[in-house]
């Protein structure tokens, strides 16, 4: 089931960006350019963004406005990117982050 909101009584939900492909943990995923990375993943049912440092617990969307860092992932090799406020660009490489996202962390 698609998790995108379609056919809304108040909102025009037609995507504004073009459809592009990004890579998520090695798999190609379609997303709309300019939308939040987190939203593109949620639309595909991907809800775990990272695992915590000490207990390796899963974390996902929590605040949605860039305050809490629960949705941090590795984006184009850079760890700790808040995916809820970072827009999709064509060809982005996204990885689920383990701990601090560095080798050995």
């Amino acid at each position, binding site marked *: 089931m698609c*998790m995108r909101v379609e056919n809304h009584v108040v909102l025009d939900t037609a995507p504004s960006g073009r459809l592009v492909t990004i890579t998520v943990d090695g798999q190609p995923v379609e997303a709309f350019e300019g939308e939040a990375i987190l939203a593109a993943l949620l639309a595909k049912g991907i809800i*775990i963004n990272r695992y915590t440092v000490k207990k390796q617990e899963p974390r996902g969307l929590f605040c*949605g406005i860039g305050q809490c860092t629960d949705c941090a992932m590795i984006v184009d090799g850079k760890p700790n990117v808040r995916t*809820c406020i970072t*827009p999709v660009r064509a060809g982005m490489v996204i990885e689920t982050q383990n701990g601090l996202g560095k080798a050995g962390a």
Partner: protein
Amino acid sequence: MLEREIVVVGAGPAGLSAAIEAAGAGARVLCIDLNMRPGGQLFKQIHKFFGSSAHRSGTRGIDIGRMMLDEAEDKGVELWLGSTVIGLFPGNKVGVRHGQDGTAGAFVTVHAQKIIVAAGASENVVRFDGWTTPGVMGAGAAQTMVNVNHVKPGRRVVMLGSGNVGLIVSYQLMQAGCEVAALVEAAPKIGGYAVHAAKIARAGVPIYTSHTIKRVVPDESGRVCRVVIVGLDDAFQEIPGTEREIEADTVAIGAGLKPTTELLALLKCDFTFHPVWGRVPLHNRDMETSQEGVYIAGDTTGVEEANTALEEGRIAGISAAAALGYLSEDEAKARKDEIWARLAALRMGPFGEKREQAKQDILSAFDESRGGLAAV
């Protein structure tokens, strides 16, 4: 160092209305917001606003947001988006990480003759067993997903909290095509407006007052799959044997908000603790803090709603512009008095009077602190 007459921190309803007023009076205004899009929470508010129809009530928040952006552009307000104010420093210096997206940015210092802080608020959380499980989120986060990102945060949601946020977001989740399995409230009474509760009751959402979430249970994928709620007695203690399980993949927590005040603490503005709002900065009827030339407006002053934030922003904008000489004292006073009268009307009735009292307490505490200093 860059020079601006007025720097406004935050481009939500309070910040934008402050910027529009000040720029309209002739001041050079820079408005800074950490988001990629201005408007703050207005673009999540797809419902029609309450308030006086003389001031855009009956209009949806998103449409008010659009009108304000047009107005800000007309008035020549300079807008920095994707830019975070990282500090306010003595001598009216504003430290900014100036960037156009969430990953990069240059650090710049702006010297401002006047500063208006309209930084809004952040959501409170409730820590039940399993509250960090993916699928548990703030009600505001769920609202952002459906109304801004046009993505459902889950299929079946349990909402915790019956304030206006919990009630409105429950409704908006259903409008987006999610199911709302239940709304749970620890207090014995619904906290928000009865008309908002009636909308979701009519849609078949069971409302459990005197209940809370005891724990959430994840499935093998790690996501919430069951929510266990429990009845509470008059002392908010769990009543044994009243647990019940609700199937849901999402929990949204609408447990109130707290003002974002760190920047004002950095400047050593005077604060008070008020039982209604928590720890908040003191301000006077110009919305000026104990630091001369530093003004505040909106949820930063104590959490209310968009209507009051818009009006407080106007006062702050007028005050700052008048202090720079763009408005005569008489004109500024007349306009501010009019706005204070409208604010008083918005703070009437059983829901508003607590906030009116809180506001009066804060204004008096400001006067007392000034009087105290003068005596020294």
